[in-house]
């Protein structure tokens, strides 16, 4: 906070009466008229603070106002201010995911026809930012990400990309708003499509890479995990921390979710939840609720708790099908059901979903449920206000067939897969990674 400025002008309360009584409410709804006689007197530093409260799209539009505002993105003072005052914005970022494995893909960044045999290869380096508060979409591009990389995790305003090629994995951290590019040292064990977990704080980076160990060039087995840690206190582990996965687990290259010191991911056939404790470098298995009756389970983090979202179908019992949300209790083994989709909505949802399955991502009080094979049908659930709504389809995604397109043609059928994303103008924690490539290590081993 700045020191008191003795020459600050007197407040204006007694110098004029406000006009335009119809517009005298300064609440944010509607389009308020702003009195320039008042606001032109706002001191620069306080105006900077106002700008720090602008959500990212508005902030980037505001850079057009003048050179000073343009340059704020590069000002350490301003970024420090943002770090202090900017509220958490629980957003999402989605990417296209091709669902036809035989599609011949032409890479936008090069002129080569590049056959992709993996169904998880992405179209182009484009992501779609979704703001659940305003129900708006924005398109973000990633020009620096080379081809052969796919998004795999997000935390602390950074997106993590992983190399697609089988072998040791290269990871890149990227801040989508400013287009920064920070590689991590490569992992040590060859893998095919491992599950990747990421958690970032202002002073630490933790990454876990698990499963799909290549035990031979053509055989994978879920054997091990390796993790990466670096923090401002000087402690680091460059993938040297390894652990064995529980026997006979099946991660299916799923996403990992971070909650309070642990990474969690779904284990399939039969369903359970795997938990990796970062501190003790240890994996354990947690039984899933109603595990024999679950369909399309997903793990989601919300407000410091692990949630499991899944459809429940008890064919043998006379129980209506439903979509439910459980949270994991503090004991770490028992689940409590906390939400259920309203029955009418579930009927509508199941009708559209047609048994294809769905995936979920969550951030803060929001959960997004995306129907597989369908890029334009997704549900947004606000757990705080108990509100379910169909999301408007992403306007930047066109040319693909929506749900109605069924199995038609090889034209560009795809679906969207997403990550929780907290937009941040600056992510200085990546500076620690820059030190790793510097020959003079500044912290002790």
């Amino acid at each position, binding site marked *: 906070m700045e020191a*008191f400025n003795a020459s600050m002008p007197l407040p204006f309360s007694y110098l004029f009466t*406000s006009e335009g009584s119809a517009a005298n409410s300064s609440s944010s709804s509607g389009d308020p008229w702003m009195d320039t006689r008042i606001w032109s007197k706002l001191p620069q530093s306080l105006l900077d603070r106002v700008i720090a409260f602008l*959500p990212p799209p508005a902030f980037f539009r505001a850079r*057009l106002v003048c050179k000073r505002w343009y340059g704020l993105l590069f000002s350490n003072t301003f970024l420090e201010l943002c770090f202090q005052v900017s509220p958490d914005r629980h957003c999402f970022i989605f990417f296209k995911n091709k669902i036809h494995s035989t599609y011949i893909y032409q890479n936008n960044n090069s002129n080569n026809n590049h056959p992709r045999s993996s169904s998880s290869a992405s179209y182009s380096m484009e992501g779609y930012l979704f703001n659940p508060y305003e129900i708006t979409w924005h398109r973000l591009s990633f020009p620096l990400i080379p081809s052969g990389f796919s998004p795999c995790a997000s935390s602390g305003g950074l997106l993590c990309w992983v190399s697609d090629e089988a072998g040791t994995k290269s990871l890149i951290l990227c801040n989508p708003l400013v287009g920064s590019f920070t590689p991590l040292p490569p992992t040590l064990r060859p893998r095919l499509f491992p599950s990747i977990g990421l958690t970032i704080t202002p002073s630490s980076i933790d990454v876990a890479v698990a499963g799909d160990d290549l035990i031979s060039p053509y055989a994978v087995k879920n054997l091990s995990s390796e993790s990466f840690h670096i923090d401002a206190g000087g402690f680091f582990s460059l993938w040297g921390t390894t652990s064995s996965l529980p026997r006979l687990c099946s991660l299916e290259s799923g996403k990992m979710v971070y909650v309070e010191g642990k990474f969690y991911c779904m284990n399939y056939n039969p369903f359970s939840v795997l938990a990796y404790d970062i501190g003790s470098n240890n994996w354990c298995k947690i039984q899933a609720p109603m595990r024999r009756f679950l369909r399309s389970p997903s793990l989601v983090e919300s407000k410091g708790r692990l949630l499991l979202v899944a459809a429940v179908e008890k064919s043998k019992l006379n129980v209506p099908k439903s979509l439910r949300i459980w949270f994991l209790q503090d004991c770490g083994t028992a689940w409590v059901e906390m939400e259920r989709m309203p029955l009418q909505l579930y009927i509508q949802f199941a009708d559209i979903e047609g048994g294809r399955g769905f995936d979920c991502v969550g951030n803060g009080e929001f959960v997004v449920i995306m129907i597989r094979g369908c890029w334009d049908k997704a549900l947004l659930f606000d757990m705080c206000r108990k509100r379910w709504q169909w999301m408007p389809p992403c306007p930047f995604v066109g040319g693909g067939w929506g749900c109605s397109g069924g199995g038609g043609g090889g034209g560009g059928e795809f679906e969207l897969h997403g990550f929780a994303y907290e937009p941040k103008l600056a992510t200085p924690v990546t500076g620690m990674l820059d030190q790793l490539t510097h020959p003079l290590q500044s912290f002790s081993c």
Partner: protein
Amino acid sequence: MSSSPPPSSAAASPSCPKKMIALRSSDGETFEIEEAAALQSKTLENMIDEDCAGTPIPLPNVTGKILAKVVEFCSKHAEPGVDDESLRAWDAEFVNVEQATVFDYILAANFLEIPTLLNLTCNVVADMIRGKTPDEIRKFFNIKSIFSPEEEEEVRRENHWAFE
């Protein structure tokens, strides 16, 4: 920032009344505020530390009308047992006022160094401008743009995603 924790008003013994701080506005009005509430303001915190005499602290930059509301704000935020949801609703009502008053709150919160009030009011202004075009924003804050048309075009292109 003072490193000593604020004395809890609950620690006052029943026979001893809660410590009240007297404030004097620019137009000579006097207000009393509980110490716990006053400590929301770093400026007041420093003044209380320095001078424990009972004389009212003069605040030449804040009028009585605004100071009354600031005292109300600080008192509410020092109240124990208020849940987040209600406090947020109360805050929203508190800033549901004329623009001139919001402006006064900002300056007062800045002068008195009350982070909660300052952030709340700056957020209100941010909400006002977020839907505005760059030209409208320039008008409101009386900013002269010194981008040339080519430069402006370049900046617009660089940040195009925010305009789509």
